[in-house]
């Protein structure tokens, strides 16, 4: 009888840690958002190296421009410089949280701005292991959060949080995140496919602080856990408060950027 009474008490208490974990996960996400909001805009140069399983490598160079949109998702423009067949190509994404993004691409050879259907964001970004979903801007409402435990990664104390996509067309079931307890930015993301199996791992290195407040990684490495293919992005020349406006990231003006 005592055993059943104990089970009854445990079953009553069991939901509380779950709610607490969800609240704490959300708290961590909101703290990340709070610390990173207000940047206005920034530009950064990226060099992405793709390494295939056979040792063949290929390099892409691009510049990325991000504008913060307080009441909606951010706007992000990527302007490719290399290789030759991608040079001059421009992609522009208006992120919308739980609604499908708006996305356009400018094809310089055709002088054509082409609208893309962006509901499914699982497509490869410039042939890399990163998908358009992976390079999209992060927002609190895009996921639900569950705190798992504290952990140590590369000697740094972290929170492990499970992020479950709230976007119904996400290509992931869950993303397990190691959040640096000091700067509230991810050090590691472990992407699980729709069947819940680990698919890809992203690691973030060499965070630096810009404009006195905003932490950004200088290097990101995405590894496909099934194929072993690796995509590495080295970021340089972060510019916060750069000389462009939200209205410059206009699909009607993409040809201007392709210069």
């Amino acid at each position, binding site marked *: 009888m005592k055993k059943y009474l104990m089970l009854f008490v445990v079953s009553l208490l069991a939901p509380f840690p779950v709610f607490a974990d969800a609240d704490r996960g959300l708290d961590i996400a909101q703290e990340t958002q709070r610390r990173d909001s207000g940047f206005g805009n920034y530009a950064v140069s990226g060099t992405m190296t793709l390494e295939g399983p056979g040792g063949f490598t290929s390099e892409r160079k691009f510049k990325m421009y991000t504008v913060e949109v307080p009441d909606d998702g951010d706007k992000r423009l990527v302007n490719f410089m290399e290789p*030759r067949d991608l040079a001059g190509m421009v992609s522009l994404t208006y992120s919308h949280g739980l609604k499908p993004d708006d996305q356009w691409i400018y094809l310089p050879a055709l002088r054509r701005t082409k609208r893309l259907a962006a509901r499914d964001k699982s497509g490869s970004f410039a042939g890399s292991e990163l998908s358009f979903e992976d390079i999209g801007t992060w927002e609190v409402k895009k996921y639900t959060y569950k705190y798992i435990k504290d952990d140590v990664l590369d000697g740094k104390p972290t929170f492990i949080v499970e992020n479950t996509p709230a976007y119904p067309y996400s290509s992931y079931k869950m993303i397990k995140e190691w959040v640096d307890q000091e700067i509230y930015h991810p050090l590691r993301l472990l992407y699980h496919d729709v069947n819940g199996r680990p698919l890809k791992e992203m690691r973030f290195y060499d965070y630096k602080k810009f404009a006195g407040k905003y932490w950004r990684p200088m290097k990101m490495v995405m590894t496909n856990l099934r194929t072993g293919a690796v995509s590495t992005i080295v970021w340089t020349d972060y510019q916060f408060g750069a000389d462009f406006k939200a209205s410059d990231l206009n699909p*009607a003006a993409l040809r201007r950027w392709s210069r």
Partner: protein
Amino acid sequence: MGKSNVFILSVFSMITLCSLANGATFKGEIEGRYDYYAKDSLFNEQSDRREQYSLATALDYNGQISRDIDITMSVFGRYHPEADKYWRGDVRELRLSYYASQLEVSGGMLMERWGVLEAFSPVDILNPRDRVEDFQGDVKLGIPGGRLSWLLDSGRVDVWLLPYSREERLAEGKDRFRTSAIMLSDAEFENGQNKLSSAVRVSQILETMEFAVSYYNGHARSPYFVPNLDGVGNVIALQPNYARIEQAGFELLWVRGQILVKLESIYRSTGDDDFTGLGIGLEREFPRIGSAKNSLTLYGEYYYDGRESDRISPLTPFQNDVFLGFRLALNDLRSTEYELRFTRDLDYDSTFWDVRAKTRIKQQWFIEASLYKFVHVDADPALRSFTSDSRLAVNVILGF
């Protein structure tokens, strides 16, 4: 001052401006092409070589003269020993542009693109086509003129003034893809080649819907042909004639989930033939096939054109046609892509197959292949002269 002098002066002026620019980007490519034709040529004058080689180069330049002013140049040239003109080329773009917050002004040689459809854009009227470089009309020639643009929050308004009409570049003599066995005489423009043409286009984005309306008033970009007769009534040449036209265009693109719904329509008025043209299409992308990075895009389009073939409007191959396209991008390190394009004429039961593939063989080296196959085109007035022009082409390209 003659036309050629004006052109040479303009080129030198632009080159001088290029020298003033800083922050310039310069890129180009050199291409070696091998063509194999499955059949001997149809017409006597055409080259009888079934294997042909050519060399081409394309150069693109962009220089910033100041923060708001830049110069853009795109030139192309090909050496083709089996073509009617061994050397051909074009200044596809050579423009000086000024950019303000909501305003753009460009002048020089312009290259513009209107439309939303994949196989053919009925609304795309400003630039004449280079039918020798590409019989389908995907390659265009630069057009001299000026453009004034206002950028809106979600769209733009563009106005063009085009003081000079260029001829479409047509295959003749030794060229393959000739449209007729009869030689061509000098072209005639209804109101003279220097008669001003003008256009306006307003485009707007409303969340998942994009539309544009356009109006063009000027010379047609494709000619109709008038027979030149000798004293006893024999046709000795065909004269390309460019009629004065007015064209109103409408474009619509609607994002429905992962599908794009597209529509283009035109109403064209010429001297004695007014007609409508229409293209509707669907595009569906599957961004990831299975767990691989491969993406597949499917296209389905239908075209109708109401022009009367015995009037002065030029023939169009898209008068009652269905187009299906399949594009597979491997998204691998070599940017490998395959494309299958199929066009079926519902009036004449003719079929055109177009198969393409491309990949990178080193960081700056690329190889491309294309196969054109014409099937049952004998009854199709727009395609029957290509009955012997089914072709395999392989291009090796060095980018720099």
